[in-house]
Every structure is written in C-alpha cells, then in structure tokens.
C-alpha cells in the first residue's frame, strides 16, 4: 500500500476554499468519538468537508458510518474530539439545530412520508405560508410550482407533484430528497447510502445528482459501502472499520483498486477483478462484474464478521 494518507494540518495549506476564499474548512471533525455505555461506536475520526467537494465515507456494515452521520446531523452528540463548522466549534442538540447550521441529511430510509404527495414532502417542516396570524395558510400553488421547477432543474421529470411520493422509484425519491436539501440552502449535504438499494442504472442517476449538488457549491458527505460508486465522484475518502478510521486519502493519492482492497481487506478480490479483465470481456461488463464482486465481498465480509 503506497497510498499517502492526508495530513489534516496541511490539508488546506496551499488551497483555499473555493467559495469563501479562506483556508477554513466548511465542516471538520477532529478526533471525534462516541460511545454508548461501554460500547465504543466510533473513535478518533478526523475528516474535512469543503464547498464544492465530495468527501466519501466508506465502510462495511457496522463500521460506524451511521454513528458518524448521526453526530454531524445532530441526532447524537459526540463524547470526544471537536466538530467545527466554518472554524467555530459546535455540538448539535437536535436535527433542527444542524439544519439551521446548513447541514441537511438525506437518510437511507429517505426521510420521506410515502403516503403524502411529492410537494408536501418537499416542503415538509419548512412550509411556505401566506396570510397573517391565525389565518396563516400554506401557499399551495407556489409550493407546487417550486417543487416542479426545482426537480426539473435537477433533471427529474415528474408527471404530477400531487402523486404520493411512495409511488416514485427509489432513485427518484433520493433525488427529490437531494433537491429538497439543495433548495433549502444546505451548505453541507449528507447522503446516507443513497445507492445501497438501487440498481446499476438508478445508482448512476443518483451519482449524477451528487455531482450536480457539488457543482452548485455544496459540501457533500457521501456515505457508501461501494468504492465503485465513491471513487468516480469523491474528492476525499475516509475509510472506517469497526468504528475506527483506517485511512483518509485525497483522490490524487489513491486508486480505486487500493480503496477496494482496503475495504475488502483482501488481495484475492483485486486478483479476481484482474483475472476477469484478462479474460477480455467488454470493459463496461468488467466494470459491472467488478462492482458485483465488491458487493459479494461485502456480503461475505458481513457474514464472516457475524461468525467471528
């Protein structure tokens, strides 16, 4: 392994934040840890998020990814280390608190209410109102128009914002959730396994929206267990294993193979992918197979962890 770990102290030495032009991270964690009773869920995690950059958090099930995002999203509080937003130390007491600081989270289970229409979901918790005092009502037409326009801007073509969001595909729902976060002025967007339950094509769609959010200047935290999804869109990669950081790399210092190998923790996987490439399949077929291999390896990893 010759990949060079990121040195947090010198990370922004020659680089300035693209939006604020100051050498301060949009969000940074320094030695953050969390334990539930005597169970250590997370320890000593250091990472940074900047405007217009994607920071990927990679790890198997139970690696501590969920704990990490819950700390950043305000659902849990960390016990060790510090969390900085734009250079100021913060500790969020509730999701609302984190939202107000510009941190929006798109959860694995989507945080949408399936039976409610798309536009109601889009504005849930941040409804637009008109009128005064007790006669304050929702500006329904405006909310519908904005929903349609915002989704169109993200390239999502919907028939009807009145249909229940549960009727959309998983990928579309993710995109609605991302569009919602972008519209409500999120500075940091946390995506919790957005591609985990999706097919190859749908995953591609979601990855494209991640890049769109990045290009709009958001700092994105992309949580995934699939290095094949993380590598093409990520700028920095934090690898977690059993609640600990096992590597933190800049994209220029690491290759997909190295990430995959570290994730899977075995050389045989890379060998298998190499073998397949040598068999001379179509290049995108090989890529698909590589993705499959990674997934199979993950399943094996989980089951061996359970046995162990």
């Amino acid at each position: 392994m010759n990949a060079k770990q990121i040195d947090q102290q010198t990370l922004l030495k020659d680089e300035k934040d693209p939006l604020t032009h100051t050498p301060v991270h949009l969000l940074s964690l320094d030695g953050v840890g969390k334990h539930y009773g005597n169970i250590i869920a997370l320890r000593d995690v250091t990472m940074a998020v900047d405007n217009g950059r994607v920071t990927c958090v990679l790890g198997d099930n139970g690696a501590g990814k969920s704990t990490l995002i819950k700390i950043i999203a305000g659902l849990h509080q960390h016990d060790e280390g510090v969390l900085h937003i734009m250079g100021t130390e913060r500790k969020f007491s509730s999701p609302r608190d984190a939202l107000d600081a510009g941190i929006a989270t798109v959860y694995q289970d989507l945080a949408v209410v399936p039976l409610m229409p798309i536009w109601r979901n889009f504005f849930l918790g941040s409804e637009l109102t008109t009128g005064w005092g007790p006669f304050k009502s929702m500006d329904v037409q405006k909310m519908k128009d904005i929903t349609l326009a915002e989704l169109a801007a993200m390239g999502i073509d919907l028939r009807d914002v009145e249909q229940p969001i549960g009727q959309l595909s998983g990928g579309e729902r993710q995109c609605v959730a991302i569009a919602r976060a972008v519209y409500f002025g999120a500075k940091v967007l946390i995506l919790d396994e957005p591609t985990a339950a999706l097919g190859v094509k749908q995953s591609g769609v979601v990855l494209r929206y991640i890049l769109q959010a990045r290009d709009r200047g958001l700092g994105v935290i992309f949580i995934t267990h699939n290095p094949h999804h993380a590598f093409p869109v990520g700028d920095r990669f934090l690898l977690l294993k059993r609640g600990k950081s096992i590597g933190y790399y800049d994209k220029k210092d690491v290759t997909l193979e190295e990430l995959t190998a570290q994730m899977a923790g075995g050389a045989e996987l890379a060998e298998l992918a190499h073998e397949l490439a040598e068999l001379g399949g179509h290049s995108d077929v090989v890529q698909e197979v590589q993705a499959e291999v990674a997934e199979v390896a993950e399943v094996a990893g989980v089951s061996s962890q359970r046995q162990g």
Partner: protein
Amino acid sequence: MASTTTLPPAPASKSGSRSDERMGRRSPFQKLLGRPEVGALVGAVVLFIFFSLVSSTFLTPSAFSTVLYGSSTIGIMAVGVALLMIGGEFDLSAGVAVISSALTASLFSWYFSTNIWVGVVLALGVSLGIGFINGYILIKTKLPSFIVTLATFLMLTGLNLALTRAVGGSVSSPSIATMDGFASARAIFASSINIAGIEFKNTIFIWIILVAVASWILLRTKVGNWIFAVGGDANAARAVGVPVTKTKIGLFMAVGFCGWILGMHNLFAFDAVQSGEGVGNEFLYIIAAVIGGCLLTGGYGSAVGGAIGAFIFGMANKGIVYAQWNPDWFKFFLGLMLLLATIVNLIVKRRAELK
C-alpha cells in the same frame, strides 16, 4: 364540502410545464375516486336512497333535521378523532371524557354554587388537560396509544362514577337548571335555530363549522402537513424538523376540545348527566372516522370523511326508527356498514392508484 379539498385547475398560461402526455389518463372522475372519503360518500348515497324508499317519513324536513342532529352528536367528536387517526393515534377515552367534561362543569358549579360559566371554563381546562396527559404519556413512554388511552378510559370511567357519588350523592349529577348562567349556556350549547319553519339543533352548525375548520387546517396549513407526516412516518417527520411531540399532543387536545363541546351540549340539553354514560361511544367516533376513509395506520384520511361517516351513522340510527323496524337491528346494521364502507374504500383506493 368536497369543493374545499380541490384546487381550481391551473390557468392555461401556467400549464406549460405541467402538461405532460402521461397526465392525460387521470380524469377528474378518477381524481375524485382517489380521495379518501369516496367509499363513505357512495355508502351515504346508497343508504339515503334506501331509507327514502322504505320509509315514507324519512324525506320529511323534520325527520331530516333529526337525522342531522343525531349525526352531529357523533360528528363533532369524529372531527377530532379523525384528525387524531390521521396523526397515527387512537383515543379510546374520548367517549367517557365527554361525560367527564360535563360532570366537571355541573358538579363544580353546583358544589361551590358559582356561576355555571365558571364550571364550563373549568371543564374546558379539564378536557384539554385529559388530552394533554394522554399525549404526554404517549410521547414519554412510547407505548401504543391503544394502551395509554385504554388506561385513561378506565380511570375516567371510575372517576366519573366515584366523584359524582362523592360530591352529589347519586349516580346522576344534581340538577343545575335554576343556577346562574344556565340559560345563557343553554343558548350557546343546546339551542335550536328555526329555518323555514323547521327546528335545527345548533350542534348541527357547530359540527359543520368544526368540519370546515378541520379541513382547512388539514389541507391548507402547515400544521395539517405535520399531522399527515406524523401519522405517515413520525421518524421521517422528525428528521426534517417537524415538531412531532407538539403535533401529537395538540391532536389529543383537539379531541379534548371536541369532547368539551359535546359534553357541554349533553349537560345543557337537559340539566344533569348520568355518570355512567359515554362508555362505548369512543368506538362510534372511530367507526365514523374509519368509514370516512381514515386509515387505522395513520397518515391518510380527511375531516370531511369523518363527517360523512357520522352522517351515515345518523341516517342508520334514525332511519331504522322511521322505517319502523326494531332498533335492535341498529348495531348489526352499523357493523355491516363499517365492513362495506371500508371494503369499498380499499377497492377504490387500489384502483385509483393503479390508474
């Protein structure tokens, strides 16, 4: 009433982005079929025609006024219960809480010889308080509302009987007809309004106003959005910043408020209340809401649906009398209506979603 629930079609100039070839297949009729209360509406129409045919007196204005009055005494409570069910919770204490409210007003003002209105205001506080306690225990313990409100139901049943006997020495509250403020309170809570020679009880109008306000809250305010959200998926709602605790407690207190109105009506329609009444009525309110299309699992339904459910109840209740059948059949009829209306709701909803 359904007109409050649909928006006028968007003007043609704005429809550029929304005219989609995939949209054409949903006609206004299909949109109507997609609404939660359609099953109840069909049931109400069928029942109305049925009783019109079998009874000669059912269609007379005075009979209609009686049917509406019967509907309103269920319907006032069904408004609160429907909202609560959309918010994903039950209230089994709603039936006896009505009597608790009436007893509070009557016993307090009788025992301390105050103006009736002091008791009425205190009863409002007690009703809202019962709702608050139900909601607060639910949120704090995370127990199902079935258990929490079943416990409240039993406790209130006991309290009603025990306190009434302790204070007034009887199973019925003492008469308050001669006390100060009785006439004015009766005028507010239990009077009749004469329209074109027919007496309409004022609870009918209170009921209609409550349904209209509840529909407006549900469909046009952010609180309504939150009610749907906490019933549909409370965790998702919390994650996007919806105040789940406040919304749920508020819903229980809304049921309390409706219970206060009905309790005051029950008290001032006569001048005393039987302390053992109200048991079993909570199911009538839930039945009205379910017939009206509210899902037992929450997140779906409407206030108008609850009103139609209550109207079905009122028609069946009085229609049997007008048809000169044995009223023993009423409960059977009610069960049948519940079954049929929910099956129709289910079928219609599935078909509308497929289209």
